[in-house]
């Protein structure tokens, strides 16, 4: 398909280059044609090129290379209104050099390493699930924690973007007290926590030690040392001495466990003197469980870690499968897929106008969210191809959602269940209410937002920023001065500075115009004019309707899989990706292609990858 040509650069073989040769080969071109707009003075389109002056710098900005190649190759850059334009020969040579480096990065023909994740604080979801698994409480103690910001590839479990503040500590303290109070208030949970009682008063200390060591091991996710235990035991002894009962003397140490940095942070040991090392078994167990469950390892994982078995790929694979099958892996659907695809916005961000869309109520909001969650969980647990995300002949719905979608299939009840689809427009995430609503504005659809979402979220090809004064179309589409919304957007796009990007963005969104701002099918727009969903991308790619858009995207499976792999690798490791991760991605995508894009294969490959199982001394 032509889309592929547009969006993917296919590298051909070039001889390797030495570091200084790269600089010498690119600097004259960049200086002559690029840096006046993309240097220290000006940063048009937020692109800066003057600092790509060495091979190392090119590695650091590897994400930009493909864009540079693309722009120069298609003659979009340097712009032809510039004073000087490169000759074809100059263009060709420059592209050759940059493509060569790009290819070496993708194939791993550059220094490789595992990478390094910073000490990771549990985010508020992880805190919730971990406390649930640790003490069995069934409320969400992190409900009022501030939302966590995001970093790296856009996930809120990115170590570097997780901060601590006194206000947060106060909340940790309050939550810890609330959790322990509810454990003590519930005889069952209390017995589960205080696993035994001292037989004689003389045994009190030894018994407390046993109880606290058990919980500290679980809370700290590793074997505990005498040194770890001392502060907890001392606190117990002090309270017991002051006349408190055995049970009550355990309260303070229990509470302290929940605000201990060993609990709140996932620490991985440093190994001074080494440049890279294998994670220990407990660290692997912890990475695996927070990747798949957003929570602590369970007994079986701990047992295997303790026995030193997790270094065995077979054991690791079996555990991964076992964990995927657990209901706890819903966390991966919620927090990985939710943030990547953006359907987690349904929870609190998305806010359609209640007067314009009175049927958009809580039930519908919830149903849309869980349609996406269940869909992703289904891919994972039933090992469906990840390309089902682009298009599928089934979805998940309850009666409310089926009615909203106007499905012909009969769906009853409030429970979300699998529904076969005969309508080709609906399947895949593009046909989901969550995606369609969260890429709309409160009062209208936005073909631009939807187009950007397809490029960025599905294909990993974000559009550059619009110039600040580009303007927006009216927030409401019912006051269109006689023009259809699409006609207004077409006028807007005529400006040359807009056309370059919007010619690629808008058509993708146009083809989805039959879906309104809350994901209903419509034949007419808000002013009663018929919807025009025909679209044309540069290169004479013509299509119309969601079904045809999905067909088009199916021709870019590898690009989609590469993007999803990047996202999942970043989520699993808790860091942004570096140039040396690109080769890992390339390798995984090749395997995915062979496996028919198996979703479980993706998870296995990530779990088995160098960055997931190892740690370097430097970032």
């Amino acid at each position, binding site marked *: 398909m032509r889309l592929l040509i547009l969006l993917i650069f296919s590298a051909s073989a070039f001889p390797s280059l030495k570091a200084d040769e790269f600089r010498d080969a690119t600097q004259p071109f960049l200086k002559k044609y690029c840096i006046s707009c993309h240097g220290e003075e000006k*940063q048009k389109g*937020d692109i800066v090129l003057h600092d790509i002056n060495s091979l190392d710098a090119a590695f650091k900005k590897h994400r930009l290379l493909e864009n540079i190649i693309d722009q120069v190759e298609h003659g979009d850059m340097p712009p032809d209104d510039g004073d000087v334009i490169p000759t074809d020969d100059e263009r060709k040579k420059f592209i050759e050099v940059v493509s060569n480096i790009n290819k070496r990065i993708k194939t791993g023909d550059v220094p490789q390493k595992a990478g*390094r994740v*910073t000490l990771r604080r549990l985010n508020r979801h992880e805190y919730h699930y971990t406390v*649930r698994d640790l003490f069995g409480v069934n409320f969400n103690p992190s409900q*009022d924690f*501030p*939302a*966590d*910001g*995001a*970093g*790296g590839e*856009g996930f809120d479990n990115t170590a*570097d*973007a997780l*901060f*601590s*503040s*006194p*206000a947060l*500590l*106060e909340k940790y*303290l309050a939550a810890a007290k609330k959790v322990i109070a509810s454990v003590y208030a519930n005889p069952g949970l209390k017995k589960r926590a205080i696993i035994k009682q001292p037989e004689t008063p003389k045994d009190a200390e030894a018994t407390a030690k046993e109880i606290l060591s058990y919980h500290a091991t679980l809370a700290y996710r590793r074997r505990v*040392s005498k040194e770890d235990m*001392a*502060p907890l035991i*001392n*606190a117990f002894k*002090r309270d017991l001495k002051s006349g408190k009962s055995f049970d009550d003397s355990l309260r*303070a*140490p229990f509470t*302290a466990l929940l*605000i*201990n940095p*060993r609990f709140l*942070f996932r*620490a991985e*040991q*440093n190994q001074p003197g080494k440049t890279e090392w294998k994670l220990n078994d407990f660290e692997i167990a912890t990475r695996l469980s927070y990747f798949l469950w957003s929570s602590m390892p369970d007994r079986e994982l701990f047992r295997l870690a303790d026995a030193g078995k997790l270094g065995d790929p077979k054991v690791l694979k079996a555990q991964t499968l076992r964990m995927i099958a657990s209901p706890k892996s*819903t*966390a991966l659907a919620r927090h990985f897929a939710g943030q990547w695809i953006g359907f987690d916005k349904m*929870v*609190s961000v998305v*806010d359609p106008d209640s007067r314009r869309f009175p049927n958009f109520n*809580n039930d519908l*909001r919830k149903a849309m969210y869980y349609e996406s969650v*269940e869909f992703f969980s289904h891919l994972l647990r039933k090992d469906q191809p990840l390309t089902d995300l682009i298009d599928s002949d089934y979805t998940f719905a309850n009666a409310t959602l089926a009615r909203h979608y106007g499905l012909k299939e009969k769906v009853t009840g409030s*429970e979300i269940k699998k529904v076969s689809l005969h309508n080709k427009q609906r399947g895949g995430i593009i046909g989901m209410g969550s995606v369609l609503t969260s890429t709309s504005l*409160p*009062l209208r659809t936005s073909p631009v937002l939807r187009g950007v979402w397809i490029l960025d979220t599905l294909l990993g090809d974000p559009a*550059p920023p619009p110039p*600040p*004064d*580009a*303007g*927006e179309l*009216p*927030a*409401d589409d019912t006051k269109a001065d006689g023009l259809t919304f699409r006609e207004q957007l077409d006028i807007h796009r005529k400006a040359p500075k807009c056309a370059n990007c919007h010619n690629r963005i808008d058509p993708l969104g146009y083809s989805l115009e039959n879906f309104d701002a809350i994901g209903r099918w419509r034949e007419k727009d808000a002013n009663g004019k018929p919807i025009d969903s025909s679209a044309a991308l540069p290169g004479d790619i013509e299509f119309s309707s969601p079904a045809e858009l999905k067909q088009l995207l199916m021709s870019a499976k590898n690009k989609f899989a590469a993007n999803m792999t990047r996202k999942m690798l970043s989520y699993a490791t808790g860091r942004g990706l570096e140039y040396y991760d690109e080769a890992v991605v390339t390798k995984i995508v090749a395997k995915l292609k062979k496996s028919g894009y198996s979703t479980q294969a993706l998870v296995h490959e990530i779990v088995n990858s160098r960055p997931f199982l190892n740690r370097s001394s430097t970032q």
Partner: protein
Amino acid sequence: MANIQSNRWQISRRQTLKGLGATMALPFLEAMRPLHGQSTASGDPVRMACLFMPNGVRPDKWTPTGSGKTYKLSPILSPLEALKEEIMVISGLTNKASHGGDGHYFKTASWLTCTTIEKTVGSNVSSNGISIDQVAAQEIGNSTRLPSMELGTEPITSGIDRNVNLTRLYGSHISWKKPDVPLPCEINPRIAFDRLFRNRNKSGSSATGNPDKSILDIVLDDANSLKRSLGDEDTHKLDQYLESVREVERRIENEASQLGAGQNLTPEALKQLAALSERINKAGGGSKNDFGSLQRLNPTEHVRLMMDIMVLAFWTDSTRVSTFMFGNAVSGKNFSFLDGVSGSHHSISHHKNDKKQLDQYQIINTWHTEQYAYMLQRMKEIPEGSATLLDNSMVLFGSGIRDGNAHATKDIPIVLGGGAKGQLKTGRHLETNGADLSSLYVGMLKRLGVSKQKVGEASRELRGI
């Protein structure tokens, strides 16, 4: 929905509020005596609040006409008419350090730091400076229950803005305790209120016997051995956490010592606290089936509750420094609840000079001014000696950009309300010709009695304030 987490996922806000509300009846107020910090030798202290408005303003309806004392308020500022003598509108300011990057983020995170943020999707988040509220809190925050408060109405925006390759968290934080420690806004009025006014120490026990303190001690006892096993970057993250532990511990000690002092709140303040608590409970109504954590409060009431909390915190001297974010940068808040507006804030701010969009933009801007006027009016009604709480305070209101359509950085909208105990020449329109925002902050810190008076690059105060 057969998965284990679906039903437990979020307790509805109402349940949460109810849970807290149960312990919130009047008796706690009676038990609560000693919120009052030490009054300064010269009487009531100066307080400072900084209120951030996202997405800029309609430029042709913001700037007042005329200068000095004989100026006329602009349409957007007209809600301040009754407070004209108590405010100073400052035109022509710019925050040079924020010019570096496109979009909103550079102009939000730096609004109170006047430094240039680190361009990153998250690996090295830094404002490269400390915000003025935190500079102040570090010096004058020790004698109050909280050194500072950070309030807002929108949850932190997660994700990366791929357009400009920045983590969106820059757009959700104006308070920076350290260059790499952003302070999140509290958006739940119940929690903000309780944190200030609910007596956590009813028994009046001494600091050493406080159960919270002993729990924190267990943690601190244990910290050093963990530190030894970590690398440098990890240690840095851990230190951030341990510093928070120590600060909360200091706070607990502080409260305990204040209990000993036995100072009382005035009956009038107690009455207003009870009334506010009641209002917060009422506002928490809403749907029983709330899905998710979105605070679906009436937007105007939500803002006003936060403002009343600030006012009462200042009045009771529970804190002297506060920030407030009306919304996050690029806020897409749906403002259709205002007559004449249909659409979301950010979208309307990119008005393309379309008359209809400009009018809507103006209505949104004016709503923000109305809320600001509400807060100033409340402060004006509270007497302190022969003056008022407003006379003894500085309340900054403004945005990091002027015209949202172009993300313009020149002549940003800034109003300073209150007299800082007679140290500000209010009742005027002060026209500066491109002076840096940081110089205004130097002047504000000086009036707060803070000795560190270098903000960004500036160490000399703005002339004419």
